[in-house]
């Protein structure tokens, strides 16, 4: 991993199309500004994992819905 030190207002470049600027630094967080092509998703790392989950959720089938309902109704019956 390449590690660079930047102050607020300074930036780094990734290739020709991507710029990351340190907008603000607080005691516990850094605010970053990202300029990148619109077709390049820019995500927090934890959001990238969620993206995969969301895609899987959106691909659920009609059979999946019935299975989910069956499981939920098992839960209700046991309540």
């Amino acid at each position: 991993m390449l590690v660079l030190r930047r102050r607020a207002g300074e930036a780094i470049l990734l290739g020709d199309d991507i710029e990351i600027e340190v907008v603000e630094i607080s005691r516990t967080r850094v605010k970053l500004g990202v300029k990148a092509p619109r077709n390049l998703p820019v995500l927090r790392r934890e959001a990238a994992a969620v993206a995969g989950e969301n895609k899987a959720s959106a691909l659920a089938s009609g059979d999946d819905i019935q299975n989910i309902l069956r499981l939920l109704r098992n839960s209700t019956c046991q309540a």
Partner: protein
Amino acid sequence: MTAEAMATVRVQTKVRSRFLGELSNEPGSELFLPAGIPGFESEHSLLPVEIPAYRPLVFLQSTERPDVCFICLPVSSIDPDFSIVVGEDDRATLGLPAEGELVAGEDILCLALLLPLPGAVRTNLDAPIVINLRTYLCAQVVLTRCNGSRRLAADGRWEREC
């Protein structure tokens, strides 16, 4: 389409869904997602749908793409002790006050996306869909690990996943 532009659309429209067929979209009933959600950054409008035969599920159907339909449950039905801290960036996206307590059911509604697995269902309570109940602005709030994942097993119990 911006939220303001969508607010000016007063005619009822139809929304097609791969699960639910043709749905009527009453003006003002859709949720507006300024930033989409991870993996679906171009999805800015979802129609919430509840169908008696499928209760307690809540479907979030894309108004643009029939093949994009998320299956959800209110988070409170999975974990009654669920709590969420909405950060300033997410509050700004959702049009919420920058500070102050947010009351579930009054200010916001949290939905959990369901992920079907073989014989089970999983949901990530660290990535709820949060809806501003006053403006219908919506976003997926991704938390650093606080509530964890839950799995609904064959015996009908929601179990915390490690």
